[in-house]
């Protein structure tokens, strides 16, 4: 088995896990029209970014490129000799890659503002901030030949474009799924209600993700269960809406057997039957199935939370040509397949599906299923400025979510 999602992979060196979680990710409301936003531009889309010209044409490489990336996005074989798409890039283009791994979106923004880096794998909560501050330039997608093969569902989204101008190249995506053991849960669930039901027959055997970002899952459920709360975006909650989500999660705690934060723990408890239903990642489902445990997953009717990242180029990049070559490389079928398989997410390039070492990889991760991803609300870090565009209230930020999470766990 490949080591999946190394960003989350170290049990107990859990620091990375929660950090990444909060930060991985696209902007809120995958299907919503309000789209993502940032502090600089609540409501996304509605602002005019500084006028910066995209690169017109590609010149020769500058010999090197400086990247800011999430762990696992620019592997050079140092974690696993077989996992290496950096050296082949260097060989093919003559651009030496210098990678700076960032732990949080804030760190990414700060690093990019130093002007020392050429490209960044920005998450949804960082991308618009970078655009609004003029730190990154629009991307001339004509100079990225592989862009034409990127899934339409990822192009020109609120978190990677402004007013129809592309600011980045989509990297990959994934959804948080509902998983259950078919031997215990006879009636296949189609709603998150099964993990929130106060009279659940699976009391003590329900699991949930151990991070404040899981509050968004409760908010997502409340969007359809309690429409009167008026939640438009699970990442934009005012005090009242957050309280409703917190109350729901406190009630859910009665049924929780354990919260999971590293995936090995989730795999083991589903395997042993200590957990019979709860939120999961595709990669966990694969591992449990590989161990012959009877589990099934679904994307519930309410939709789900998930993540999607974007590669962007610095406005003042010193090595723009090598940066463009990297952007093209990372979404080239072979490299995109490698990074998707290593990280455990759906690739962004449609042709990557032919290059995966596991031939059914794309089917498993629903890479080509736009209908599926239209229901995914990509992760974003909640901030005080409401991401759904409301200006009459103040939304709750991530540190409030964190305290709420402590309170929920009691």
């Amino acid at each position, binding site marked *: 088995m490949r080591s999946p999602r190394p960003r989350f992979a170290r*049990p107990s060196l859990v*620091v990375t896990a*929660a950090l990444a979680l909060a930060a991985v990710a696209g902007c809120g409301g995958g299907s919503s029209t309000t789209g993502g936003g940032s502090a600089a531009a609540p409501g996304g889309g509605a602002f005019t970014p500084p006028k910066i010209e995209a690169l017109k044409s590609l010149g020769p490489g500058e010999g090197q490129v400086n990247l800011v990336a999430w762990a696992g996005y620019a592997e050079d074989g140092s974690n696993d000799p077989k996992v290496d798409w950096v050296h082949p890039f260097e060989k093919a283009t003559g651009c030496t890659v210098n990678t700076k791994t960032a732990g949080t979106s804030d760190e990414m923004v700060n690093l990019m503002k130093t002007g020392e880096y050429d490209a960044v794998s920005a998450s949804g909560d960082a991308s618009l901030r970078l655009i609004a501050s003029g730190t990154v330039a629009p991307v001339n997608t004509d100079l990225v030949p592989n862009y034409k093969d990127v899934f339409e569902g990822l192009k020109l989204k609120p978190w990677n474009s402004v007013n129809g101008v592309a600011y980045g190249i989509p990297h990959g995506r994934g959804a948080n799924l509902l998983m259950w053991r078919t031997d215990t849960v006879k009636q296949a669930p189609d709603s998150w209600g099964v993990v929130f039901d106060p009279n659940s027959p699976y009391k003590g055997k329900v699991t949930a993700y151990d991070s404040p970002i899981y509050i968004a899952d409760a908010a997502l459920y409340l969007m359809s269960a309690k429409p009167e709360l008026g939640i438009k975006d699970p990442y934009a909650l005012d005090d009242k809406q957050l309280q409703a989500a917190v109350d729901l999660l406190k009630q859910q705690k009665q049924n929780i057997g354990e919260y999971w934060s590293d995936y090995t723990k989730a795999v083991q408890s589903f395997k042993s039957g200590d957990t019979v239903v709860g939120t999961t990642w595709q990669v966990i489902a694969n591992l449990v199935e590989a161990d012959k445990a009877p589990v099934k997953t679904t994307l519930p009717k309410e939709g789900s939370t998930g993540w999607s990242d974007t590669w962007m180029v610095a406005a003042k990049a010193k090595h723009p040509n090598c940066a463009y070559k990297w952007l093209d490389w990372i979404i080239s079928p072979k490299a995109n397949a490698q990074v998707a398989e290593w990280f455990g997410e759906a690739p962004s390039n449609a042709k990557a599906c032919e290059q995966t070492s596991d031939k059914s990889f794309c089917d498993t991760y629903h890479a080509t299923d736009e209908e599926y991803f239209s229901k995914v609300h990509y992760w974003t870090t909640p901030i005080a400025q409401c991401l759904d565009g409301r200006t009459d209230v103040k939304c709750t930020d991530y540190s409030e979510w*964190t305290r709420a999470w402590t309170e929920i766990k009691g």
Partner: protein
Amino acid sequence: MTTLTTTAASPGMRRRAASFLHRHGGVRLSLLLSAPLAWLGLAYLGALAALFVTAFWSTDVFTGDVVKVFTWANFTDLVTGEVYRTVALRSIGVAAAVTLIDLVVAFPMAFAMAKLASPRAQRWLVIAVLTPLWASYLVKAYAWRVMLSSDGVLGWGYGLTATVVTLSYLWLPYMILPIYAGLERLPNSLLDAAGDLGARGWRTFRTVVWPLTFPAAVAGSIFTFSLSLGDYITVKIVGGKTQLIGNVVYDNIGAANNLPFAAAVATVPVVIMLVYLAAVRRTGALENL
């Protein structure tokens, strides 16, 4: 020629240095103590001071940067938040339970090692007690996770009890070793004398063995208590849905990037340990260590 002079010179130098140090006791002492004191002062107390100072700062909501302006807000939140009191009390309860269990398990074990086993067996027993310390903390915690899972050997499930059991296992050597050392220093003649004077097992224990090994037991309890109080990984692995102080610190620092509040929470175990040490000092155990 050169070698000859150096070899001739260096013993002379050394002798002079030695006699200088012999005459100046203060210099000798300060040389010996400078490294450990630097460590204690800079690395240890310095880090604690930094922690304490950070606790009075806050973070900027938008940028996430630390704002270096004095505020009591973190401590106000900490004191007024009911959940933090619950978590702190739970952590103390876990630490106390672990200490008690370890004491009960370790004492007979240490007694057997020190008084009943042959010198040869003693050596092997000490090695046996130390062996688990060679294995990774994580491996041991996950091993307990497997044993406690419902299809495992024990099958007790996860939760607070599981956490206490696992921590008791993890910290047991830290309790056995000090008590063993304490019992070794206890002369056998005292036990014989107690027997000659008609004391049975329990009475000998109560009036002779326990008072003399109490300081050693206290030393062990400081280890088990403080180690349990700071733990957050075991509870993540076998704790089910519970959380301890360590988890609150971790959540605030790791996920929310709120270093000041995490620092404020982290002062709680420091205060608890200070209270504990003060209580121990009052019993006089520290003087007899």
